[in-house]
């Protein structure tokens, strides 16, 4: 089954990352690279997004499109990237996610069809 993992950051996580010095941050990135290497045979694609301040949302359920600044979910958690994985079942997806070394929230969603 194919799943998309949606990674979400929190304000706390962003602040912690910002507070790190150069070596600490490099080590944190290194752990993420290692995770992608370790699971390379199951990850079909992945994307890291620019931070939330770059987001623009368009609402199309009004008479005219309404364009607003920021992500569509107003909250402390914002999507920061996603990866597509191809595994046997939800348990295997959960196993991979359990070792994710970075942002504190991951949503697992099966791909339709």
């Amino acid at each position, binding site marked *: *089954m194919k*799943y998309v993992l949606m990674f979400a950051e929190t304000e706390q996580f962003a602040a912690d990352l910002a507070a790190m010095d150069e070596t600490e941050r490099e080590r944190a990135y290194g752990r993420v690279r290692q995770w992608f290497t370790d699971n390379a045979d199951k990850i079909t694609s992945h994307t890291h997004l620019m931070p939330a301040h770059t987001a623009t949302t368009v609402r199309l359920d009004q008479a005219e499109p309404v364009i607003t600044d920021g992500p569509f979910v107003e909250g402390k958690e914002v999507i920061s990237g996603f990866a597509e994985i191809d595994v*046997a*079942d*939800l*348990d295997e*997806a*959960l*196993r991979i996610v359990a070792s994710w070394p970075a942002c504190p929230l991951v949503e*697992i969603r*099966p791909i339709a069809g």
Partner: protein
Amino acid sequence: MELARVVREHAGRLAASLVSLIGDFSAAEDLVQDAVEAALQHWPIEGIPANPDGWLYTVARRRGLDALRRNARFRDKLALAAWPPQPVPDDRLRLIFTCCHPALPRTAQVALTLRVVCGLTTAQIARAFLIPETTVAQRITRAKRKISDAGIPYRIPAADELGARLVEVMTVVYLLFNEAYLPTSSQRAQAQHLAADAEFLATLLAGLMPNVPEVLGLLALIRLHRAREAARFTPDGQIIQLPDQDRSRWDRDVIVDAAWLIARAASLKKPGPYQLQAAIVAVHTEAGRWVDTDWQQILILYTMLDRLAPSPVTKLHRAVALRYVAGPDVALAAVGELRQALNGYHLWHATRAELLRDLGRPDEAHEADRRALELTANPAEQSLLRQRISWA
């Protein structure tokens, strides 16, 4: 009761083998429900057949070949199935792990386990939990959809995840049992069914995983509580508290058997919360009279339990043991420290009331009982507290 027992014994087995056979949890579950509904209609009139599993399997297969016309894949698998049904190795463990998967909400885990593993109908589950049948049906439908759409597997978890997943399963069984423990008087019969379901599940788990000490501990705990069932209520549904129970009405055979389970669990040398809770109940059952209770031992066990799984409710129980070991003043101080955490819990106030009464402070005791009464919704507990208030 006999009918419930036979259904419970066979429905889960049928569900397990049908899921294996047609490879679809939801479709298999529908067939089992049909067969169970048919059994509940026919058996009370025609009697329980000599071969209940064959009977259920026949109905499920016939219904399946008919109902699964839309889905040729499942139907063909069913048509090719060995006939008559062959005895299969017990697959119910896989079934339990799927029903109690952590990706399902707790309420769905409970409903699904009762329905699929114990063969309860939606209506029976609704009655047991005093919730509308539509709510139960909705929970089950959603859960089944999530199982198939999200790819929740039908298998026993791998060794490294088994521990956490087993905790999930044991929590569901424990919740069922707790739900059955303090029924309202009008719910007594339902609750006994539910307690029997919980014991059935714990027995099944212990049979399938005989070397997991916490599983044995959970089974012992449930059996020990059930062994005292007959002595816990007056005929009109009033609670009889432990000191006042007629201990000759406790089921000694069950108690001996549970003690053996606890000893076996202990020999595996991995203590856990269920084993400790069972051990505490066992100490109570060993005392011939209330005054013979080994409180020192109970205090030690509660101390261990609180260290292993810290909780304010365990500390409250520990304080009760402390009353008999160190006196009511020491116990009251310990209870006082829990005010913040347990101010909304009726038993905190009720325990305080008893200690205050011991210490000759009846006015404060009265006030605490009154608070406790405001906080409980259980009629049997309400009536007990009302009595205490009127005596004071």
